Each structure stands twice: as C-alpha cells, then as structure tokens.
C-alpha cells in the first residue's frame, strides 16, 4: 500500500493506502468520482479511457494509479461544463460527433492532444490520429468533421 498525490483537473488529491495493482482508471472513477472517464476494454485497444497525463494522452486502463503519483491529469470533466463547452466539445455537438457518448470522452482527450501537437492538414491525418480510438455509433465521419472544424478555429485564433 502506498500513499500518492495526483492533480486532477487542476486540483490536488492525496490518496492513502493505494494498492499497487489499482488501475488509474479505477482510481479516477471509483476513488475520486471522475466517472466521465469510461472503461471500454481494459486492454488498451478501444481508447475510451484516454486521459491527459502531464500533457500527453494516455490510456488510464493501462496505467497503475501509483504510476500517476505526482502527475498532472486532465479528464473530460476538466475540459468544459454543460453550460460552457470548450471549442472541441462544442464542435462535437455542432457536427453530431457523438451518439451514445461512451467513446466520446476518449475521443475528446485524444482530439485535444492531436490539436495541440499536430497540424492536422488533411482528413487522413485526423483519421490516422484517431485510429487508436474505437467508436461503434458514428462511423467516424462526424467526429472527423468536428476535429477538422476545431482545428480550423484553432488556426484562426493563432496570430
């Protein structure tokens, strides 16, 4: 058992007696109550549990909670609120980029990572970037459109 300290969406949490085997996804969902992070496969394929760890997208089902000791984590709850969606969230809504919403938190976190790091010049780039996140509802077309649109809004903002 270990005591750890993690920062989630800007707030620090001290958690004591963490079992070494506890998954980061379970820490976020069950211990800290961030149920926006979804668990779809527990073997790192579907991407639904994707969160940002120190600024990089990571699968919280493939990370142990103790590995996140000292880390800064952003979950979907840290992006925007129902009243004030962030740019990517609002583009998902605008373009109908979600149906059942289960894969959506992972799509958004991967999308945030892609938007920050890559030019995303073509739809192929966006599709390639999303290839580690599975969606069974949308056929991806509207997710691609939402990210493309968010990328365009991002370039407009830059001087």
């Amino acid at each position, binding site marked *: 058992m270990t005591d750890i300290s993690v920062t989630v969406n800007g707030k620090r949490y001290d958690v004591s007696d963490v079992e070494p085997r506890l998954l980061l996804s379970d820490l976020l969902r069950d211990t800290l109550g961030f149920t926006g992070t979804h668990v779809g496969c527990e073997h790192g394929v579907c991407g639904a549990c994707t969160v940002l760890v120190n600024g990089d997208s990571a699968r919280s089902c493939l990370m142990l909670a103790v590995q996140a000791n000292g880390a800064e984590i952003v979950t979907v709850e840290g992006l925007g609120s129902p009243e004030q969606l962030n740019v990517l969230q609002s583009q998902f809504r*605008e373009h109908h980029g979600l149906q059942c919403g289960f894969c959506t938190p992972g799509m958004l976190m991967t999308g945030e990572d892609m938007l920050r790091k890559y030019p995303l010049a073509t739809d192929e780039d966006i599709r390639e970037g999303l290839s580690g996140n599975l969606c069974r509802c949308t056929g*991806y077309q509207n997710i691609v459109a939402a990210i493309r649109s968010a990328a365009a809004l991002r370039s407009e903002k830059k001087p």
Partner: protein
Amino acid sequence: MSSDRRAQSSDVLRPKNVGAPIKRTEDPRLLTGNGEYTADRKPDRPLHLAFLRSGQPHARIARINAEAARLAPGVMAVLTAEDIADDFKPVIPFSRIPNYYATPIMPLASKKVRYVGEPVVAVVATSRYLAEDALELIEVGYDPLGAIARAEMAVADDAPLLHEEAGSNILIAREFKKGDVAADLKAAAVRVSGRFEMTRKAPLAMEPRSYTAEYESRRDAVTLYTSSNIPGIVRDAISESLSLPGHRLRVVAPDVGGSFGSKGSLYPEELFICIAARKLRRSIKWTADRLEDVSSSSQAFAEIVDAEMGFDANGVATSLQADVLGDVGAFSIYPWTCGLEPVQVVSFLPGPYKIGSYRGAVRGVATCKPPTGPYRGVGRPISTFVAERLMDLGAKALGIDPLEIRRRNLVRPDEFPYRIASGIIWDKTGFIECLNAAAETAGYEQLRKEQAEARKQGRLFGIGIASYAELTGIGSRIAVAPGMPINTGSETAKITIDSTGAITAAFGVASHGQGLETTLAQIVADDLGTRFEDVRVIQGDSDEVPMSTGTYASRSAVLGGGAAKHASKILQEKIKRVASHLLEANADDIEVAEGKAIVLGTDRAVSFRQIAKAVYSDMKTLPVEAREELTATYTYDPINGTTAAATHIAAVEIDPATCFVKILKFVVAEDCGRIINPMIVDGQVHGGVAQGIGAALFEELIYDDDGQLLSASLVDYVIPSAPEVPLMDVIHVESESAVAGGFRGMGEGGTIGAPAAIANAIADALSPLDIDVSILPMTPERIFKLMEQAKLNQEEKADE
C-alpha cells in the same frame, strides 16, 4: 418572436422542429462527463459481483468446491445454482410456432455447461478486485460431454445432445412456400446458385453490459439500473421470475453506451444480480469486462445459406429457393427466441423483388457457443447479401448491367402495397427512387468508365449495388419474433404539465445513442405547441409508464413518435379548454404555440404557466369542473408497421499485394419517410454502414473445434477504426408513410445494405480472375487464398 406579435394561424400550424437538424439535448452532459451510465451509479456501500465462467464447451458439473473462496478477504457470498434454486423461476422464451424448443434462461449454469463463458459460480465481495481474487480459489470439476462447435456437427447422426429434453439439436425449423419453385426453376432461362455464409459476429457496443441492482430494505424493493434497450421487457420478466410486483421492481435504462442488439435480451447476469441483491439485502454492481462481453453477450448472424435463383431471358427473377442452417448457439434468448435471426433470413430473402415462386427452409441448431440474438439488421444483412449476390450472378450470366437488372425486378411505385413471395407486405416506399438516386449520386456511368480504365491498367476495381427493404415500426398484428407471445406492437407516451408550467414527456422506449430525447421532444414541441427546449423527455424507466417494452426493431420513432403526437394533441385540447375560460373565447378560436394559448387574430394569450396556475393552484379563476389535470396518456399501435428501403453503392479497389480492400466511394439513398431530424438520420446511416463494413471486411468470431473462442479481444476481433471507414454520401428519398407522422424506422438499414454492396463490389473487382464472393468477411487472408486458387485454376486451364 416578441410576445405581442399577433400569431397567424399559418405560423402555428407549420411544424418548426420536426424536419430540422436540431442539436441534441443529450450532448452537453455526454460531452462533459456528466452523463450517467449504469456503471457510474453510486449506491450506498455497493457490493461487487464477479462470475466464474465455464472453460468447457459442454460438460457435466461434477462438483464445485468454493470453501476457500467463501473465506477469502472481502467476500460476502459465493453462490451456485444450487444456492439460489428456490429464489426464482426460470424464464422461458416461449413461442407459439411449431417445431420449436424453448430452452429456459437460468441465472447460473445448473448441472451442466453448454458454452465457454457460461456463468457457473458468482462471488459477491466488497470490491471487484477482491471478488476476482476469490474466483481463483474456486474449483469446479467437469465431466466433458463432447463439443459441438459447428452447425454441421450439431445435425450429424452421432452428435451429443446439448439439451437432452429437446430430443434434438435442432431447436427450430420452419419453411416458407409460394408457387411451384421446382417447375419455375426448370423453366428458367438462367439459374444461378451458391453456398453463402455470413460468419458469427459480435455487436460490440463500446459500453460493456452493466447492471446495478439498488436494494431498498424498508420495502424489499429493487431498482435495477441496466444497460438494456428493453427495460420494460426486463422488468416484466424479472418480476415474474422473482414473484416481485412491478411496484417493487423498477427497471431503469439510464445513459446507455450503444447496444446494436447485444443489450436487447434478458441476460442471466441481469436476473442473477436482482436475486443476489434480495438475498444479501444489499446493492450490488456488475460490469462485464471486454472478454466477458464478447464471450457471453448475444452474438450475430452465423448462417450458411444454399440458395438458387431462376431468371427468364429478360432478366426477370421468377423463382428462388434457399436452405438456411443457422448456428444459434447454446440457448434460445428471451424474449425473441433462437428463431429471431435465422427465420428472418428466410422471411426477408425475396427482399424488394417481385419473385414469383419461393421456397425458404430454415433450421436453427444448438452449438456450444453463446446464443445468437438481435444484431442491427437481424437476418436481413444475410438475406440481402444472398439475394444481391444472386442478382449480380444473374446479371453476369445474362449480360445485363447490375443496375438494369434491379430496375427490372424491384417493386414499382404503382404496384404497392405488394406482398412478396414470403408473405411480407411492403407499403408504398421509394424502391426505384432509391436505386435511381443512388446511381445518380454515385455517378454510376462514370464509375463504370473509371473501372474500364482501371482494368486496362490491370487494377482490381469493382462496383457493387445492393437494394433492400425492411419492415419497421411493427404494430400488434405482426410479431417481431416468430410466434412470440408478448406485445411488441404498442408504446405509450405520457405528457404532463406540472404546477410550475413545466412539460415532461415520459416514454417507455429507451435510447442507447439514437437521440430519442431530442427527436421525441421535437415531435412534442410541434404537436403540443411549445418550445423545443421546454420539453423534458424521460425514457427507459418502468416507473414512468404502466407498460412498455423498449427500443428495438427500428420502432421508436414510429411507435414512440406516434404516441407522442396523439398524447400531445389530447393535452393541447385540454389546454384549449382551460384557456377558453381564462380568455373568454371559444376553444375553437384558440391556437397553441410557443408555450402559450392565443386567441386567433388577437394579442390575447395565456402562458402554460398561467394555465397551470389556474388549474392547480389558484382556486378562484376556474370552476371546479374546468380544473382538468394537465396530463395526457396515449398508447399508439400502428397495427401493421411500415416499410423502409435503400440502395447502397460501393466502389472498391483491391491491392493485389496486400489483398486489402479499400472503399473508394460509398453512397446510400434511403427512404425513411418523413425525417424528424436529418442530422440524426445521417448519423444513424453512417454508423450502420460502418458496422456493415466491419461485417463485410473484418469482423469474425472464430471458435475452434473445441468450442474455444479464439478472437475474444479487440486485437483479434477487429472492428473498423477511422482510417478504414470512407466518407459516405447519404441522400434521402422522403416519401411519407401511412403511420402517424409519416415516419419510417431507419436505425438498422446501414448494416443491412453495406455488406451486400461491398461483397458485390469485391466480386466485381475480382471478376477478371473469375472469383466469386460467397463468404463474409472478405478478409485479406480469404482474398489472398481465392486469388492464389484462381491462379492455379488458370494455370491448369492453360496446361489443358
């Protein structure tokens, strides 16, 4: 609109919301992590469940030793079939049809196991980690009884019986017949035939199945939160099984992360968790991990079809016959029965075509696999694959273009209603219109020119067409599954204006991604006369309406929408009557719009809030007899149902080096009647087509001869990801149906048309090599083998 502007009657009669791409009410919560799926429930100090599942395909349970597990840390109970035998009655998936054996649904395997993955022992513990630890300590002794891994093995003379009481492994058999097929085939100018196979698939919703049973000890009541799309059916079945009246068993489907059919049957775990919650008088949670979900949720398709079609010299299909062998798995599912999937293959095989004579025979046989159940399209992805392959084989044999041969065989606009050879009646739908619209949008002529160019360069370029029709929004006259005794023909809407003037519309249908909260609110807003954003829709909660079944079989827009329209109108009449008192006007002169009742041609108006106050709170304004409660309930039954149809066109190119199929173009022209929300309709088509692409190119549950599942992870069971799905073009032929609102069901169609269109495109691409496509998925491995065989065949020919 400013409040003092005079309303014109044309303003208030014009629908404002139905037909508009209104953004979804669901989205703000789902985009911010504020949704609530079943696994997100946080009951007081919940216990957690884990199942020990059978590793044997077919075996007698000789002994279970769970003593060590019972003593393990955190364990509250270890339960076997014996321990719960007195706590429930088995659930029987009954059907009136002959030649059917109903296998009972048991929460845990009793006496023997029949597939790998069947739950045998349950551990209830203070955490899932501890529950799974305890599973390791349980010893189960099995006496193997011999695996039945393939449908052909099940019907062999020396096959072991999976259900001894049934006396046979054939759980269902049926035949459809019209006319003299043998004579018509004999007289045909051309006969084409083949053995077609659609392998077993997983519906694979991204949210695994999940149940939370919340126990209320003060009245021995259970609220089951379930990832189900049939909460009403689940409530009724568990109520009966546990002898617990409906007011002590509430079943709620909260936000549900997709189903596609896999959450559309009653599951052993769903029944078990309610039994355990009552037994332990505690709330209990369980969510399947991905392995459990793939290896124990209902599976899809798995049929082998021997079929033959006869054509006259003009390319008119005259006759069709088919023998279907369905591998239905170890059990019949509740309530749909094991007949749902394979019987639907033969009942829909003639499709949208005017084929004169028909014989379709089906056998559903038990094997050591999880049961097959509903999956988006049910039966029709295979029936369409087979019929459309035969149509193309006929076209090839007669030298007729595939587009033209369909024009000659589709039911034409002046021929509706049309009864096809299997007995299904199509109401007026744009069959030909869809075909023409798809061909035009795809640029069919141009594609053929591109193909000719590509072939000159030796490239494998193919074009495939598939047309289909489906029955949607089915009413009480037709059983959704053959001979099933429960009513699937009606749905209820209950609309209430409360004392604050707020509007709540409650339904029993249950969205699992289709956006019903939005589309049903669009309908209520228009028909009641209020603003879209002022309507709250509640769905999937058995406490909200007295009876419901749920969302399946492309019914919710038609049945839920029809109920919404009728209930809205009844409530609007009540509003008008109250308003006539308040405004001192004749009720006939009052129109209701934007949440207000307005005297036509004047600026005199009262809001719903004022009306509610007058009815419920202010005891002076209205006489007692005029204080009608502002609520309306309507149960809508479309009696028959309505047809939906589409044509899909795919263009593909196959890389001869990797044997990978690239989809270059995909066009869908569909008729779903009057569109409620075009944004949502397009999204449904996109998703359906993507699943069809998965079925055509990637997805296959592979069981070995010992009944072990070899593709149980998402690495081995491959569903399409973003790079594999092309940009899709969707066009709508909107011909209003005869049901309330003119809607047609459209949630499943994408998956019905796409596999056939892609199969035909691959066959077209490979036709220079004389290769036929008769099994799906066409994985690179299968294409490689076919191409290698074709090379050998050509070499042999050259040698002769």
